[in-house]
């Protein structure tokens, strides 16, 4: 078979890649084999532009999700993107995005206990905005996993390309922790879940929302089935208790193909796959269609030979399809059978290891350490910032998510970090966020700032950061500027992780977030999990006691940050990250000593916005007297309410860390250097993001 350029384009493969395949195989690949490579070597599955860099800088495992431990309870967590499907069909894109990340968690043998999402749109109340929020609501609520936190940010950079990053967290007992690595020859590859159809195929035509003429060309949009997912979660929990389960893998990108090949390759084995045994929903599906289908709500289990019926019983109970579709073999071949007919035969490692296309391009990004000063009134600017959709309260969004199902939610959305109870008195604090303004201006320093922000959130809610997950959202990596941004961001996150001594346990990369040449801002989204010693002894997020002193902890005089929300210039601020790390450590210690009544990390809009948010939350005002810049942004700064009478104790503990007493709680206004602003005015601005009728 001589390959034509049309055929190459159909499978989105370059001529170089094709020639590599021919050289290694010593022959031309057949149609099925060609599709296998097109899927496994796509950016979507193969991560050609990122895999090597991630491996080198992040030191993550190959498992489905990262894991940290709260005593003997494993906390599995990961964040993933579903950006492109949300641009085409926002509701189903968001819904199936949740489905996918949840399955990554159950693949660890963990029960999902929380969801968070980081959403980036151009502006509120667009079709995409409504669709995504409705989709998250419909799917997340239906499967009974609480959506406890996250963020929604707005910037024109995302007008054609929304970012929808979803993080899932689950719990697993040590003895039930599952791996994705296959072991043992002759063991059975079992598929359970929904039937397989043509979903996700013809992916190349996914880019636009145009209505195609022919039925065959219409992109096969996946419709999420949260009821099936719920049954899959429960069935998987029961299945993972069985001793005969060797490995688990969820079916996401390139479905059956990638999940089964990765499982066996990681275990150093070979795989025989029988596509005729896959339960199908549509007629006349070709072997490659069955292999590549991205039909939702399916999982793969590697089961000890002879024990398949134990899994089948559970699948039947939960009304899920069950099929033995393959077995592990001794050699490292990947063979696909359609009945008796062998339709593909490839070396397994070749399939799962695409060529490396990562590039290391260095760029310098401007930094300034010129100190920022403020003279003047703050009311107008404060109102302006509080009503900015990125800062404004997202109550109208998160009240559409069930955030208390499961009965384990301790701190709900609207706080710095969500807190979820785990066992006895212990819990976890969760934060997920990105900041396109920061990372566009300086991908290296900006990414560190995003990481330190997530850690600050966790600490402000009473947690001790234990692990990091990340989703790298970027434009087209073939463009030098984007490749440079990505390289800088990876380095930034790795440096930050090292400085804080918190491991990066896993994550995801999403490239090609572009439209008509317009690239999104480089937007690394970072999730941090922290351990909470006692969920009943964590600071409040809002002012509590009239008369308590208010402190700013962290740098007082800060440089002009071109990425601050009230400022637009082209230099990021110069940051002393060592001092920031020390500040985080000190805050964590002081909170654990229970001297802190309420705490809030200072982020967008600076200390004035932070104080306003704390006042609005409890409708208790404050009197602030300070010449610290009210709106400038700089990492690791906190507003703390200290128990009256314990100031000396607190200040002694803060030795070596910059801090400043800035005011006292009381009244029903926010008084800033004598300027009195009614809390009701602030509240109206802050709650201006309306509900969609």
């Amino acid at each position, binding site marked *: 078979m001589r390959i034509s350029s049309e055929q190459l384009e159909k499978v989105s493969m370059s001529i170089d890649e094709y020639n590599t395949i021919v050289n290694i195989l010593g022959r031309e690949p057949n149609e099925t084999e060609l599709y296998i490579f097109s899927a496994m070597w796509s950016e979507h599955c193969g991560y050609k532009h990122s895999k090597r860099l991630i491996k080198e800088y992040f030191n993550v495992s190959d498992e489905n999700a990262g894991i940290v431990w709260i005593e003997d309870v494993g906390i599995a967590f990961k964040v993933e993107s579903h950006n492109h499907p949300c641009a085409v069909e926002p509701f189903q894109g968001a819904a199936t995005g949740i489905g996918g990340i949840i399955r990554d968690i159950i693949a660890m043998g963990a029960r999902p206990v929380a969801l968070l999402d980081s959403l980036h749109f151009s502006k509120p109340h667009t079709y995409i905005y409504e669709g995504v929020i409705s989709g998250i609501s419909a799917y997340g609520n239906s499967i009974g996993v609480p959506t406890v936190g996250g963020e929604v940010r707005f910037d024109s950079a995302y007008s054609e390309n929304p970012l929808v990053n979803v993080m899932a967290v689950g719990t697993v007992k040590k003895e039930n922790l599952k791996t994705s690595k296959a072991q043992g020859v002759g063991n059975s590859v079992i598929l359970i879940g929904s039937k397989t159809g043509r979903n996700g195929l013809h992916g190349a035509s996914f880019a636009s929302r145009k209505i195609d003429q022919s039925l065959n060309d219409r992109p*096969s949009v996946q419709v999420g089935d949260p009821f099936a997912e719920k049954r899959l979660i429960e069935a998987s929990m029961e299945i993972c208790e069985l001793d005969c389960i060797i490995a688990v893998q969820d079916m996401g990108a390139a479905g059956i193909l990638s999940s089964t090949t990765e499982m066996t390759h990681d275990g150093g084995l070979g795989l025989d796959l029988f596509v005729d045994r896959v339960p199908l929903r549509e007629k006349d599906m070709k072997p490659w269609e069955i292999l590549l289908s991205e039909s939702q709500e399916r999982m793969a289990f590697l089961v000890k030979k002879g024990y398949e019926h134990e899994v089948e019983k559970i699948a039947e109970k939960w009304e899920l399809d069950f099929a033995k579709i393959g077995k592990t073999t001794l050699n490292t071949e990947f063979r696909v059978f359609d009945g008796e007919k062998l339709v593909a035969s490839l070396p397994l490692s070749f399939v799962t290891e695409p060529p490396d296309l990562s590039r290391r391009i260095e760029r310098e990004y401007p930094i300034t350490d010129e100190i920022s000063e403020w003279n003047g009134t703050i009311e107008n600017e404060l109102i302006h910032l509080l009503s900015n959709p990125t800062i404004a309260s997202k109550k109208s969004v998160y009240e559409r998510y069930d955030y208390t199902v499961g009965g384990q939610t301790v701190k709900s959305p609207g706080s710095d970090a969500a807190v979820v109870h785990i066992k006895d008195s212990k819990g976890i604090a969760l934060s997920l966020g990105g900041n396109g303004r920061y990372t566009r201006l300086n991908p290296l320093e900006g990414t560190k700032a995003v990481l330190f922000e997530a850690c600050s959130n966790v600490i402000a809610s009473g947690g001790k950061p234990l692990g990091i997950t990340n989703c790298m959202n970027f434009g087209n990596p073939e463009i030098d500027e984007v490749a440079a941004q990505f390289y800088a961001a990876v380095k930034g996150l790795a440096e930050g992780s090292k400085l804080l001594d918190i491991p990066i346990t896993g994550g995801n990369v999403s490239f090609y977030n572009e439209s008509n040449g317009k690239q999104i801002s480089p937007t690394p989204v970072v999730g941090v999990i922290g351990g909470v010693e006692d969920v009943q002894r964590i600071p409040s997020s809002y002012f509590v006691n009239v008369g308590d002193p208010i402190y700013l902890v962290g740098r007082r005089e800060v440089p002009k940050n071109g990425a601050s929300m009230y400022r637009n210039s082209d230099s990021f601020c110069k940051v002393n990250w060592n001092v920031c790390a020390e500040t985080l450590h000190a805050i964590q210690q002081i909170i654990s000593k229970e001297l802190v009544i309420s705490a809030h990390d200072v982020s967008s809009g600076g200390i004035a916005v932070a104080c306003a948010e704390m006042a609005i939350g409890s409708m208790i005002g404050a009197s602030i007297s300070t010449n610290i810049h009210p709106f400038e942004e700089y990492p690791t700064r906190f507003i703390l309410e200290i128990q009256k009478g314990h100031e000396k104790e607190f200040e002694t503990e803060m030795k070596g860390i910059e801090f400043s007493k800035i005011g006292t709680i009381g009244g029903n206004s926010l008084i800033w250097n004598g300027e009195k602003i009614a809390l009701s005015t602030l509240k109206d601005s802050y709650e201006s993001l309306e509900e969609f009728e």
Partner: protein
Amino acid sequence: MRYSFVVHVKMNPGVFDPRASTIERNLKKMSYPVEDLKIGKTFEFSLNAESEEKASFIVKEMAEKVLSNPVLEDFTLERVEK
């Protein structure tokens, strides 16, 4: 003049509708042996227009742009006598 229409919106044949398949499966369990169950939405309404042709044009546009999601759904429209 006043014209009355009925617009039926259904999922495209290639799209899997989990609601329909769940309901079909459970109806069978209750001994109602249905096959090929499909769920749709029906919109009945009237509108004023200069002519039947103009009315149909407006309704077709409304059905395409608003009442249905072309990525997932298809529709039929018919004029009815009130």
